[in-house]
């Protein structure tokens, strides 16, 4: 207490000195001269705050603006003390709430510390409340995370065991099935000899289809299950698959038009109820590409235009450029204007790309919407292009609103949390029942039964028996593939870094949404972040990592910007009792930022700091009042 009081006396003499520095200046009052803090010089008591800079570090002028490197300490009793740049001293602007920075009499600053301090304290209290709640939730979540992780790990090891058993069974079934098929084949060869001419024609047709892997996959979906199963068993080498086709007992389904097949694939992506075999195939694709719509992506006009871009940069011959301009010549006045203007904005092109994206989705979507028939599509393109120069035209606005209605995205809820839609989570319950040991035993029994009962060397083959074998094989391998899917998704999940205390575990599989103007932003931690506008989706980034010791989530390598980088998103994390997304922004083009509140950031230590801070300010304040 005594020390405190003497410090007050001293600081009244030394304007702008922080309490922790008061001891340093004491030397001036005892010896009359001290060194500048940086040792560059010495200065006397008379040179202290004499409005002339002697020390290049500003030591001699804590209370004036004379030294550029100086700092001025405002006591701000009733509020938080601050050190401000010397450039703020006597500059005509009140910076300290106690007004001490303006002391040359030119302007009068009101002391606003009490009010400001009150506001700050209230804010601090609120923050503490949030933290307290958050800390509780966090504790709970950390516990839960440990349990869930343990559960997940347990499940994983169990699944791996079962997978081994099932694999063996499937292998056995497969061998048996092949034996049967061999027998069938024998029978068939005999028949074939009798109708040789006819068969040859068909054979040729079959060959044509060779190599069209997707064709087969698609076709066999419903009708040729055996074939699919065989593919799986044989492996994914396309040669082998083709071989399998050659051996195919019947080519009856291979006559469909190839175009049809492509559409079918695209269609499947949207398909909700996929059967087991298809799931399996998809999973294989997913290993290379998280997006299920791989096929559609491959032909994404975006990428084609990227290719064109590269092409343009790498080796466009002079004549080609002229060709381009020739085309420009044939443009209408308006188009020409747009084209030239777009050089500065780069927008037209991108809008167009986005347009192309939109169009693609539209076609996928359906044609029940009048907005999206052929003519409108081109009109739409026109308008979007237009909006490259204009923030938003009336028609555009109308359109976006329409879009919202159509999608039902209109709910302007600022933030919304969802689970990933199709991340194998739905499989989980399924899997749990599948992994019931009794089921496994049942299968084992059945297989044993088959192996004993069916005699593959007997001709003619017993059709019902062979059908049974095939069906059983299908079921078993289907289950196996589902199991493998689950194993890989669990492995992937458990491979993530969920923070030192696994405090981010519960965010796995969650998506947060926020609506900002015409866009809906969706952030799925550990997965990806997207920006949706109507039907078109732009990927802002894929999950990269945590940064700044778990204060930031990074999503990188999103869709490429025209004439710019790949999009990326930086999510700052802040303590909050709820998981909420806020403040999405694009400070630099294609570099997004957002704020995410989560209890995971509500650390107990930090709460303690805040509480201490509040206590000390209240203590200071009560001191002031007494």
């Amino acid at each position, binding site marked *: 207490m005594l020390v405190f009081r003497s410090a007050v006396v001293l600081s009244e003499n030394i304007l702008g000195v922080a309490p922790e520095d008061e001891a340093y200046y004491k030397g001036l009052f005892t010896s009359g001269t001290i060194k500048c803090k940086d040792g560059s010089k010495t200065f006397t008591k008379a040179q202290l705050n004499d409005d002339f800079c002697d020390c*290049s570090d500003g030591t001699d002028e804590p209370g004036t603006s004379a030294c550029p490197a100086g700092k001025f300490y405002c006591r701000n009793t009733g509020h938080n003390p601050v050190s401000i740049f010397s450039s703020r001293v006597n500059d005509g602007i009140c910076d300290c709430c106690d007004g001490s920075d303006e002391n040359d009499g030119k302007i009068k600053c009101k002391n606003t510390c009490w009010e400001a301090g009150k506001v700050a304290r209230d804010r601090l209290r609120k923050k503490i409340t949030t933290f307290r709640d958050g800390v509780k939730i966090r504790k709970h979540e950390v516990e839960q995370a440990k349990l869930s992780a343990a559960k997940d790990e347990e499940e994983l090891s169990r699944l791996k065991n079962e997978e081994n058993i099932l694999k063996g069974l499937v292998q056995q079934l497969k061998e048996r099935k092949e034996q049967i098929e061999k027998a069938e084949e024998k029978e068939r060869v005999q028949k074939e000899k009798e109708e040789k001419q006819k068969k040859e024609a068909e054979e040729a047709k079959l060959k044509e289809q060779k190599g069209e892997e997707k064709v087969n996959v698609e076709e066999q979906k419903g009708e040729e299950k055996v074939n699919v199963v065989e593919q799986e068993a044989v492996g994914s080498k396309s040669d082998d698959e083709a071989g399998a086709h050659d051996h195919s007992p019947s080519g009856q389904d291979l006559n469909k038009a190839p175009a049809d097949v492509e559409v079918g694939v695209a269609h499947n992506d949207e398909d909700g109820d996929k059967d087991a075999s298809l799931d399996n195939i998809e999973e294989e694709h997913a290993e290379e590409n998280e997006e299920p719509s791989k096929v559609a992506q491959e032909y994404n006009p975006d990428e084609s235009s990227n290719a064109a871009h590269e092409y343009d940069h790498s080796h466009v011959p002079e004549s080609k450029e002229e060709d381009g301009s020739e085309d420009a010549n044939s443009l209408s006045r308006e188009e020409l204007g747009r084209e030239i203007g777009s050089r500065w904005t780069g927008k037209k092109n991108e809008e*167009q790309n986005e347009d192309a994206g939109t169009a693609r989705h539209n076609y996928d979507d359906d044609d029940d919407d009048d907005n999206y028939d052929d003519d409108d599509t081109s009109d739409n393109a026109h308008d979007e292009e237009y909006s490259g120069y204009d923030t938003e035209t009336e028609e555009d606005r109308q359109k976006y609103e329409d879009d919202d209605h159509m999608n039902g995205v209109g709910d302007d809820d600022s933030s919304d949390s969802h689970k990933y839609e199709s991340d194998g989570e739905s499989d989980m319950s399924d899997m749990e029942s599948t992994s019931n040991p009794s089921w496994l035993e049942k299968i084992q029994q059945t297989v044993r039964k088959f192996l004993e009962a069916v005699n593959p060397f007997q001709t003619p083959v017993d059709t019902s028996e062979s059908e049974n074998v095939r069906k059983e094989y299908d079921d078993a391998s289907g289950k196996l593939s589902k199991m493998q899917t689950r194993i890989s998704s669990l492995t992937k999940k458990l491979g993530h870094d969920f923070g030192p205390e696994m405090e981010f575990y519960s965010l796995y599989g969650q998506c947060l949404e926020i609506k900002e103007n015409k866009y809906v932003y969706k952030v799925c931690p550990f997965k990806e972040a997207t920006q949706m506008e109507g039907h078109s989706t732009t990927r802002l980034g894929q999950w990269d990592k945590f940064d700044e010791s778990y204060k930031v989530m990074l999503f990188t390598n999103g869709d490429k910007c025209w004439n710019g980088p790949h999009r990326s998103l930086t999510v700052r994390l802040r303590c909050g009792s709820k998981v909420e997304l806020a403040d999405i922004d694009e400070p630099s083009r294609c570099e997004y930022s957002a704020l995410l509140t989560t209890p995971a950031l509500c650390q107990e230590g930090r709460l303690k700091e805040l509480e201490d801070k509040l206590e000390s300010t209240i203590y200071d304040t009560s001191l002031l009042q007494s």
Partner: protein
Amino acid sequence: MGQILLISLKTDTNNDLSITIKGGRNMSSSSIVLHHFLFLLLIVCHLTSVSSWKKDEFRNCNQTPFCKRARSRKPQHCKLIATDVRIEDGELTAKLMNPQENLDENSLIISLSVYQNGILRMKIDEDPVQNPPKKRFQVPDVVLPEFQSKKLWLQRYTKDGDSFSVYLFDGYEAVVKSDSFEVFVREQSSGKRVLSFNSHGLFDFEQLRVKKEGDEWEERFRSHTDSRPYGPQSISFDVSFYGADFVYGIPEHATSLALKPTNGPGIEESEPYRLFNLDVFEYLHESPFGLYGSIPLMLSHGKSHGTSGFFWLNAAEMQIDVLGSGWDAESSILLPDQKRIDTLWMSEAGIVDAFFFIGPKPKDVVKQYASVTGTSAMPQLFATGYHQCRWNYRDEEDVKNVDSKFDEHDIPYDVLWLDIEHTDGKRYFTWDKALFPNPEEMQKDLASRGRRMVTIVDPHIKRDDNYHIHKEASKNGYYVKDATGKDFDGWCWPGSSSYIDMVNPEIRSWWADKFSYTEYVGSTPSLYIWNDMNEPSVFNGPEVTMPRDALHYGNVEHRELHNAYGYYFHMATSEGLVKREGGKDRPFVLSRAFFPGTQRYGTVWTGDNIAEWEHLRVSVPMILTLGLTGITFSGADVGGFFGNPETELLVRWYQVAAYLPFFRGHAHHDTKRREPWLFGEHNTELIRDAIRVRYTFLPYFYTLFREANMTGVPVARPLWMEFPYDEATFNNDEAFMVGNALLVQGVYTRGAKDVTVYLPRDHTWYDLKTGTAYKGGHAQKMEVTDADIPVFQRSGTIIPRKDRFRRSTLQMENDPYTLVIAVDSSGAAEGEVYIDDGKSYEFKQGAYIHRRFIFSDGKLTSVNLAAASSTSSFVSDCTIERIILLGYSSKTKSVRIEPSNHATDVELGPLQIRSGVRSSALTIRKPNVRISDDWTIRLL
């Protein structure tokens, strides 16, 4: 039901672009394919154009008939002789006619008039008596009205053979030679020529004719047709600069300061320097191609004569060849045996209205030119600080954040700028209500810390019936008309747009009124303006501008005044800002297009440059050239507009730009954010230092702006302007002078560890940071660090500084001064300071402080330079807190100050107060004399 279109682009071996479209099932009609194909085509067309400047979109000389014709002419093409020479209205007049053939060519009228201080004006036009089909366009509103009062009334001429000479200036005369026709300026005593016109007989004047059957007057370029209803009307001629080692001027080109020859032996096929205001996407450095503005003023400088200048007041497209020596080897013309540089001037229309400036010193020529077109307006003090711009600061929150970050990092700045996106759909004078709901509050908040805002206002007006500007303009017929007489409709940012016809004074006045606070809703007194796209830029027009046959007020074709369009727009906007404050507040308007006279209305910048080292490099000669041709208040976008500068380039750019008159950071919206604090602590510090250096020198800059305002001598000067006898400086455009005291050498390469600096001879140069003295006269290699670029103070000068840092210029107002004296070999030095209120026109009534500081014999004196009789006064309580002496050896410990008769200490102190930088110079501590008083400080 789904459908997929497979579109792929690939490159064949022969580089043909092949486009494949595969349609899927249910292709309802082929139109889908077609639409996508067109889409794709647009994308492709677009992509081929993004890479950079497209040469073939702009006309070259061969595609420009008048240029092609003029360039193909051989010397002695001109057959005219001057007849009927006489003095009339104080001018020497004559008729120019072709005596050999009795062609249907009419004669031309030539008149020579002489003005004070060595200016000859020559006009050549069609003879009105012969009733030409149309009066040819003479550019009004450029020559100062008061210039006329400087006319010397010629009384007589002297005839010598077929030469008629008149008095021009003390020791100089102007001569008209009758046959063959030639006009020149020469020294009276020696007979040495200074400048000559038509010495090579390349003069050609296409007279207006009535269109006859079979006349094909239309011109086509790409998809555009120019109807050319009046047919060919071009003018071309040769001008020779005697005693010239180099020629300079004729902006705007991204080229070296000393102009390279464009035609002649040994010179590869090259384009002439083009003067045609264009909005050029990603312009190239080292190109004679014309950019955003045009000033047809060329200066020459050489060891033997000194400096002279030639200015052709003409607003049509112009092309200028600098002819390499020997270009005329095959002609038999005999010219005086003097070193010279010949040039060829070509213009599409207008008349000959040419000015000959005799110099002979560099500053004489710029003063002579300024007496014709005016000196630069006195800027507000804030405008000389640092400006922060970006396309775009998106909303009020963004503005707040950027502003507060400057404070957080203790970096001073004065102005925050908003580009086109702040408007409601590119309707100028409006605000995007979602992004900027409270523009007034935003500006007031900035103003509370002394900061201003600038918003953009362009000349293209959105054709939207609900837009008040469009409504009024179309109702009143205020738009430029197309060739058929309808409002011209072109494409720019807002889409379909029309362009205000600023040539009409009534329309300018209407436009100016739009800047009143009631009309420009959301504007406040701290809001200033930026005029962009005023070349004018028309995205779908020929060469991205307005068709030449568009019509302006007075039935003037656009071709006749194209280069002045942006000037009129700038003028009208500037007048608007003057009007809104009742003539009390100096305007600040930045323009991209410019023309002679622009300096009276505001500031210009070098347009859409690129974030490359070469663009940093070329920005220096570009700005120096603008200064030589009258526009001293100019700058280049710091960092480069297009592209992302590497950090080192950005830092170097700040370091150089801090010494150039207009100092603004700007960036394209596709670029990464590049505010000063975004590149790590160390680079933040470097950029802060660069900006702070600018602020410490503001008293010096402001004094130089006043000098430019009074005399026309630019703030940033080529070295040869200050050292006209030092040949080594003549083509140095890597270094420049700020005033007569500071030499700045930029660093223009990546990772430079040293640079070679030429310090002019006969002077000693003091390193700005360390005070180290260097003898001038040779190029020397100097080490550089990333901390700064080499800058030197010349011996014999005194520079006023303010060494305290503040948020912006406003808070510096009462801060004390530091004087830095660098003495010459005789121990003497001189310098000035000019101070006024920094914003109003009161200085015109004498409300200013103007002091000269003279140091000699160990005594510093402050002398009043202000006019004695003034109706208004300006007072300042500012004192001088520190006086630093460089190159003065003395063991003195104290000084005595008169008249207060007090003493103060002399000690060793730092040259700049910066932590970590050790320097030591003789420092007078706290003399505390007032800046506005007479006093003497004597070293004891």
